[in-house]
């Protein structure tokens, strides 16, 4: 596959994203360097393979993938970041794969409908809030209020979590391998089923993450109607 290398030094959001879209349209693989200052890098990307060398800013990979890709089981873009990511990584994503080798900031995979986000380092607070269907895997630790208002999807945390994990979850599931400071409202801990263990093992091994599956616990909503029906 032909490739294009983009040095983002001195370039803004428009220039970088336009170059990427054009290259991807031509079927090229893209490598981006020096893009930490570009907030919204790769936002709205629907296909292609992109690697970023070094850190990236906020809202990287926002709204990637298409609704049709999720519904039809088609693959979206594949993005690998060889560094750390800022806040709101893969915000509102619908399809594709985002792999971060370092740490990520606040609110990764917030609102995400689909696709997979893999973080090999640790993640800040608010990971996967109002998650609607994406799969989010964190090899390290996560911050507070992970999975707030989740209505679907899966969050897997190999390390520890902060306060109020799964606060006010409505649907979806959180797997945690380490400890957490406190459970959120409307959630309970449950043992993993054999099916859960099999799925977890498969997902972690796919991304080269070693973990003791036996240590994981599953956090699920107590009720799917925590707010309404009792005004």
């Amino acid at each position, binding site marked *: 596959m032909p490739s294009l290398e983009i040095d983002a030094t001195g370039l803004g*959001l*428009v220039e970088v*994203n336009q170059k990427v879209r054009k290259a991807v349209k031509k079927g090229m693989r893209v490598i981006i360097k020096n893009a930490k200052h570009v*907030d*919204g890098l790769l*936002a*709205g990307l*629907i296909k292609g393979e992109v690697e970023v060398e070094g850190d990236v800013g*906020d*809202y990287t990979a*926002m*709204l*990637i*993938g*298409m*609704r*049709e890709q999720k*519904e*039809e089981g088609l693959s979206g873009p594949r993005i690998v970041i060889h560094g750390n990511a800022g*806040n*709101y990584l893969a*915000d*509102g994503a*619908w399809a594709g794969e985002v792999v971060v080798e370092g740490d990520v900031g606040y*609110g990764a995979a*917030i*609102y995400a*409908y689909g696709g997979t986000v893999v973080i090999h380092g640790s993640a800040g607070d*608010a990971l996967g*809030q*109002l998650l*609607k*269907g994406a799969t989010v895997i964190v090899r390290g630790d996560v911050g507070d209020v992970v999975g*707030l*208002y989740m*209505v*679907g999807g899966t969050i897997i945390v190999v390390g520890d979590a902060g306060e109020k994990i799964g606060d006010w979850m*409505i*649907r979806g599931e959180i797997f945690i391998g380490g400890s957490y400071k406190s459970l959120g409202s409307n959630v309970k801990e449950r043992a993993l089923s054999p099916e859960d263990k099999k799925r977890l093992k498969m997902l972690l091994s796919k991304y080269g993450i070693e973990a003791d599956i036996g240590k994981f616990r599953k956090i699920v909503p107590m009720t*799917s*109607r925590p*707010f*309404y*029906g*009792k*005004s």
Partner: protein
Amino acid sequence: MSSPLYNKIVARKCQTSIYWAVKDEIRYRAETGKYIIRGFGYSGKLPDFDDLLLIPVHGLGTPSPIDQYRERVDTSVVIGKGMVKRPLRLSTPIMIGAMSYGATSREFKLACAKAVNIVGTATNTGEGGQVVEKQSDGSIRWLEFEYTKPNGYLIVQFASGRWGVSLEYLLNSDAIEIKYGQGAKPGFGGHLLGEKVVDEIAYTRGIPKGTDCLSPARHLDIRSLDDLRKVIKILRDIVGYEKPIGIKIGPGNVYKEVYAATQCDIDFIAVDGKYGGTGASPQHAIQGLGLPTLACIPAAVRALKDAGVREEVALIALGGFRDGVDAAKALALGADAVALASAIMIAAGCMMCGQCSTGKCPAGICTQDPELRKRIGGGKGIDEATKWIANYMKAVTKEVAQLAAACGHRSVREFNKEDLRAITVEAAAIAGVKLAGLEDYVLPQWRWF
């Protein structure tokens, strides 16, 4: 005490006390332990557009009136004249305000889309995504957008729940409105009960059937003005710098919030006043939160002027507009356009039964019940409702044009505050309009605005 008049006297005093009108509400809370949830908007009397009147001219030291039957008044309005490639070029300053698909039916939403095509104006998806139709080949038809064409426009909302927000949703639109609040329940976010999340709504919102939809009170991924600036820049990039992007706020700290919004590169600001309606809201939010529309428009205008963007950033006013008279007064206060929602529902057959939140709407508007939905347009279907909505908007546009003519204007864009007089001191003070008779401001501060 023994007089037979005694009981009559005390009963009458009780009946005129402030408790009489709300005694059933108090008993409801006492018997159920619940607060009241209902549809529609504020009930009561606050300073409103009835407290202002338009001033006609006669050509005696004043401009001459325009002959409204012979001469044309330009009703066109442009939203997004600053920097976008495709601004909204509306044939009328009358738009349809945001009402979500989910709170309202597919038939109603499509009737609104068809009506704005007839009238040449814009409608708004609200926060529940867009009415779509899945095709047999797996592709999606963006029906709501499609039905507004070729003459109308669809504004899509980007709200705190992001229901149905995808790349395609943003591309199949004419403008994007980032919702921060609304008139009926500012600070409360949005709510759609799982009972209304039937198959079609679940598909549009991308969630399982029956899931309660909570739009949080604030955006989870926009926590500062700097974040907002970044998000607007990213949205502009995603949609190719073609479409206007704006902000909608509720009736809170209007001056401060509008001013702040102008620092984030917006094309329009929509301000929803207290009379704004809703499909479902706690009554205490409807009644207790926010300021009247009359107070919001002048505050927004001042903020736009102070920020130096009065010409570039359009002001859309919402909240309690019933007819061309209200609309003309809002334009005179400084709005560039007004968006109607409750009145559009009434035009489409709403009987104001107040059952919006229950999903039992007998007019087929605020319901997802397949049988009740058949009642849209009085049982005659979407095209009948379309006709009613379009007729209503055309009539309101004519009213605005005729009032502009009587005020001596050849364009609705010429309306200004000198066209108005307040008939109450309160309205004069709140809206910064001269008091009738006094012919001056009741508060000297307004002279400088």
